């Protein structure tokens, strides 16, 4: 005998924070729920949703089913490193989580959905690496969307102490090809002084699913943060990525490799915020578009007053594999300091006939020639990870995608 429990929409059901969570957390979730309800839906006139597909934002069909899984692949860790599922970390290291949990505002358009995430998140990973401790092997977390119309709200919080080092991979996938799912993920990366923090998100959801990912990176003095996003799955994915160069000498790499095909749509918004002098940020987003897929890239570099000697670069490159694709790029700059080196640019191009002819003249079929070139176009940004393990994880996802187009 089975009992059917009517699931209510994620838009209607108030958060049910587990009773073992700290009080501050359940209070926060209630507050976030109120915020979610009061915040307006994005509308057509919003600059941060320009070219965006607002129709994708109707999440009323989704419920919190609880069938989805999270799997952790954690290497052996040096003493002092805390690496726990978020739910456990809330109990055992509540104060530390509290100090860093979702401190920055979502400013690239998804404030409402970030509030929903905050109200609903139950799982994810908390990583804290103390001063001078280095974790060599990547920590891997797999979020597997399971069940029809199920929504998940995975949270990733990574904190590195002074001169610490860590890399973390979030993989997002579906348990089958058909069930529509929704993933609203938030990751907060807090790179302490002189530390090296590398984060990599690999999104391979099925093509009936939707994804919102909001990333906030805070880079301390002389720290180096890398945030990489790979998109090959989902019907629609929206990435909002903010990197704040908070301390002098901070360096941030913001990288992405996306391969939409069919009717997939990826919408990416970025913000490079230079708040201190002698900081450096380098953004490279690459899209390889097939079918009638569509991408939007909108990036802003902001150099605060006093953030002199800033180097900031922003490049979005689109490789149009078919002339039925659409790539929109909106690069932007706002500079309020002196002695600043900034560049921004975007390109959209298809593979030239001469390149194909050249490869074919060596016996390579036109199909393989196109794939080699597309693969090379993506590999170039993946290699910027400068970490063989992470590169392999991303390249494998890319290979899986290329095998289907």
């Amino acid at each position, binding site marked *: 005998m089975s009992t059917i429990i009517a699931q209510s929409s994620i838009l209607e059901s108030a958060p049910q924070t587990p009773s073992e969570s700290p009080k501050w957390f359940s209070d926060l979730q209630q507050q976030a729920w109120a915020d979610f309800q009061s915040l307006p839906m994005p509308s057509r006139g919003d600059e941060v949703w320009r070219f965006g597909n607002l129709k994708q934002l109707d999440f009323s069909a989704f419920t919190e089913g609880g069938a989805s899984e999270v799997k952790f692949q954690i290497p052996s860790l040096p003493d002092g490193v805390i690496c726990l599922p978020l739910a456990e970390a809330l109990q055992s290291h509540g104060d530390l989580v509290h100090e860093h949990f979702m401190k920055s505002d979502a400013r690239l358009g998804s404030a409402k959905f970030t509030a929903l995430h905050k109200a609903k998140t139950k799982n994810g990973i908390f990583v804290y690496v103390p001063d001078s401790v280095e974790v060599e092997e990547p920590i891997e977390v797999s979020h597997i969307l399971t069940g029809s119309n199920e929504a998940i709200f995975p949270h990733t919080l990574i904190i590195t102490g002074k001169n610490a080092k860590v890399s973390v991979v979030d993989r997002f996938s579906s348990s089958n090809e058909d069930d529509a799912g929704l993933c609203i993920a938030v990751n907060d990366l807090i790179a302490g002084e002189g530390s090296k923090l590398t984060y990599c998100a690999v999104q391979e959801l099925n093509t009936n699913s939707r994804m919102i990912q909001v990333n906030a990176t805070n880079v301390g003095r002389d720290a180096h943060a890398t945030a990489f996003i790979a998109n090959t799955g989902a019907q629609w994915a929206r990435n909002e990525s903010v990197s704040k160069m908070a301390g002098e000498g901070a360096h941030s790499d913001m990288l992405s490799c996306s391969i939409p095909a069919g009717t997939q749509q990826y919408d990416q918004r970025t913000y490079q915020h230079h708040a201190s002098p002698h900081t450096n940020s380098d953004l490279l987003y690459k899209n390889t578009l097939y079918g009638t897929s569509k991408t939007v890239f909108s990036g802003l570099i902001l150099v605060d007053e006093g953030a002199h000697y800033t180097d900031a670069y922003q490049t979005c490159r689109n490789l149009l594999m078919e002339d039925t694709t659409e790539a929109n790029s909106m690069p932007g700059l706002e500079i309020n300091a002196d002695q600043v080196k900034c560049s921004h640019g975007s390109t959209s191009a298809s593979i030239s006939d001469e390149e194909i*002819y050249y490869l*074919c*003249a*060596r016996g390579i079929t036109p199909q393989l020639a196109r794939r080699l070139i597309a693969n090379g*176009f993506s590999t170039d940004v993946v290699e910027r990870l400068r970490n063989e393990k992470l590169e392999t994880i991303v390249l494998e996802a890319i290979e899986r995608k290329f095998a289907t187009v």
Partner: protein
Amino acid sequence: MSLVIKDLHASIEETPILKGVNLEIPKGEIHAIMGPNGSGKSTLSKVISGHDDYEVTSGSVTLDGEEILEKDVDERSRDGIFLAFQYPAEVPGVSNANFIRAALQARLPKGEELDAVAYYKNLYSKMDVLEMDRKFTARAVNEGFSGGEKKRNEILQMMMLDPKYCILDETDSGLDIDALKIVAKGVNAMRSPDRGFLIITHYQRLLDYIQPDHVHVMSDGQIVKSGDKSLALELEESGYDFLKEGELANA
């Protein structure tokens, strides 16, 4: 066994360029084609390789008896035609080593994998002949290469793919004397009774280092004169003015 070009006519955007080329390159021989700019030399090489900007209006090209004009570019290459380009394309993102490997893999029967260790051993030994730095394996195909590096890279591919018929389109242009000698060394190392060469050049200079068996002069889309290597020296001294004066010898 030869590459035979018979009464070949080809146009680009309705403009006839080749107007009845006849040429036979038996295996084991090196043929050179010289001629002024615009005479159709490069077009001939592109048409043989199968470039689809050119429309063949009549004639035939047979490789060891088999017609190749209906075949695609990649198929002709696998059949044994190799064209060393005058201006090799740059292919960003694809490493030289992966590119040559893919070209070799394309020649293997389905399901058979290229032996990676043997491949690199072979690649390095050929690169040594051409005095190419190992770093060229990891660099994107021709991207940022100097003119001379691109030409050496063409010869490297030719050596790796082991073709039956090699066409070199102005491989000497843009090469200083040292680079020219290295390229010639690569070509000479490949001379064999099993391979034919067609060398297209403006100048006699390359032919000092690669001795041709036959020299042909092309003008206005036809071979207008043929001879032995002394013809190249003659042309070097007296130029192509004789073409205008109507002193045409029959091909």
